């Protein structure tokens, strides 16, 4: 019960954080591009709940939820969105390039499928050093069409590396529905071609996600090689803040919203509404604090933009 309540807390934190980001984007305090995770919270929270602090995470450009679920500080994430020097990437990454080595969160990535080979390398390094840890690699259904996906799947399987490939299948890559981009739309089937075990899971059910992840990790940790999860989910909002979202059927969106992962868990837990509104209040305070932190932080000094292009050699 306590554990499940924690899952609810994390999902709600992501949801409210994202809603606030949308507001701050409209008021232009957040600039650049913004891709929200609303609706998909159960995936990040369910998977991440089973990952320990030594494990590693590789993410996408839709990664605020992954970072929050991983435990990257909301203050540092919000400051990053604002482009402030106290942000988790020093204000240089913005929404799509959150990065936090201290939680082994190896970054959002604006290049679709760009993170997959990196995950293979992280896992290879961990294995070569005899560290019993796993790398979670998140990517969307769209990424499965890129060459880097296929190269990475093969490499990880060939070398039997400890990677959990987490495919967030939300049915769309920007405006294109999965049938129009994949010859085989059952994405989990793809893993078979690489000799990799795969499972399909309801990505709107955080408990199911957590359970399937637990089993997968157990196998990976016993050196069985990589695994593939297809997490079936849906983004409740448009692809990005620029996207008018004309390509999705209203009824389809409504249908998926009925499966809201937060409502679902709250119903399972049979929580009294007071408990939920108390939780909401607490979360609002966390987010208010993060926004205040981001607002008051100073931006990077322009003169220092030329730093860190190369490593700084000590003289």
């Amino acid at each position, binding site marked *: 019960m306590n554990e499940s309540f924690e899952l609810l807390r994390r999902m709600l934190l992501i949801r409210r954080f994202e809603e606030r980001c949308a507001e701050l984007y409209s008021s232009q305090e957040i600039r650049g591009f913004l891709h929200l995770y609303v609706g998909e919270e159960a995936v990040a929270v369910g998977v991440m709940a089973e990952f320990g602090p030594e494990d590693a995470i590789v993410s996408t450009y839709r990664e605020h939820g992954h970072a929050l679920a991983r435990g990257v500080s909301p203050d540092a994430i919000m400051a990053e969105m604002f*482009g402030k020097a106290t942000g988790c990437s020093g204000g240089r*990454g913005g929404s799509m390039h959150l990065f936090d080595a201290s939680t082994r969160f190896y970054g959002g990535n*604006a*290049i679709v499928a760009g993170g997959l080979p990196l995950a293979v390398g992280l896992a290879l390094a961990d294995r070569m050093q005899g560290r019993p840890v796993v790398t979670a690699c998140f990517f969307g259904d769209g990424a499965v069409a890129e060459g880097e996906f296929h190269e990475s799947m093969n490499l990880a399987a060939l070398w039997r590396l400890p990677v959990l490939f987490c495919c967030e299948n939300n049915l769309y890559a920007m405006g*294109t529905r999965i049938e129009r981009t994949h010859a085989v739309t059952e994405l989990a089937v793809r893993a078979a071609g690489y000799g990799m075990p795969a499972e399909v899971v309801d990505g709107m059910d955080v408990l199911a996600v957590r359970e399937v992840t637990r089993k997968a990790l157990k196998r990976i940790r016993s050196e069985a090689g990589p695994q593939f999860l297809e997490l079936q989910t849906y983004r409740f909002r448009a692809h990005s803040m620029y996207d008018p979202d004309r390509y999705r059927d209203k009824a389809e969106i409504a249908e998926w919203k009925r499966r809201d992962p937060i409502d679902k868990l709250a119903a399972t837990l049979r929580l009294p509404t007071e408990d939920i509104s108390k939780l909401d209040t607490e979360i609002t305070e966390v987010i208010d604090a993060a926004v205040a932190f981001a607002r008051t932080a100073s*931006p990077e000094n*322009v003169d220092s*933009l030329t730093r860190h292009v190369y490593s700084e050699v000590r003289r």
Partner: protein
Amino acid sequence: MSETLTLGKALNLGLRRAMEDDSKVILMGEDIGKLGGVFRITDGLQKDFGDERVIDTPLAESGIVGTAVGLALRGYRPVIEIQFDGFVYPAYDQIVCQVAKMHYRSRGKVKLPIVIRIPFGGGIGAVEHHSESPEAYFAHTAGLKVVACSNPSDAYWMIQQAIASDDPIVFFEPKRRYWEKGEVDTSGSLESAFPLHSSKVLTSGTDATVLAYGPMVRVALDAATAAAEDGRKLEVIDLRTLSPLDMGAVFDSVRKTGRAIVVHEAPHNLGMGAELAARITEECFYSLEAPVLRVAGYDIPYPAARAEEEYLPDLDRVLDAVDRSFGW
């Protein structure tokens, strides 16, 4: 017939006309069909020409460009849209190793009339991968032609000329200028249009030559207006073609003014400015009153949105370079 069009709409009309003129012209790219592309440059074309001529592809840049090579080998004229500058890199292998080399490798037997459209440059509040200026990578590669349009009229004509060209062309579109309007005379014929691989003098002046292309042409023109108030007459040349470079008008101008300033968003180091400076120095050495100066992006990855005004060359930086040239 003359119309006022945005640069984006001019490209859209140019593509439409090319498709009407030649049924072998086909468009391919990510979300270009139903959605009309992220910048709506292909808006309405799939509806009117069908999904066999305006093809929505999966996210597979390398595959898209390689497919275009095969299509071109069989007589099609593919026009590829790369969604943002930074997404061209997965296709770089196909562009450099296949697109650029097939004609040469076949001793001229096969032609590759492929156009690779790339919205480039910053100024729209985006970040790295979405604001880059990768033109020099392509201009460096023999076998590719590289052009950049700067205004609606050129956009309309240059895209059609590029499609009609038998050589592969990397076609750079200044994304921050997509919404800027200008007069476009759509009545002429392709043959009578200003030639594709020619630079164009936009303002004539006697004091210094300013060379720009794509999004920086507007900045150069603004600098010329501002400089005129100080009594300095700048000659602004829109290069338009980056490979091959058209140096005729440039040399004439520099011989007259004795000063040259190159402006681009791409980083200094080995940018187009380096090649232009070298060629001007080789040809116009005795006419030069000062070294050729460069106003360019800094040698750093494209910065976050908040810092992009600092990064992008602007009016002040161009005027400052003019001053430095005169102070030499």
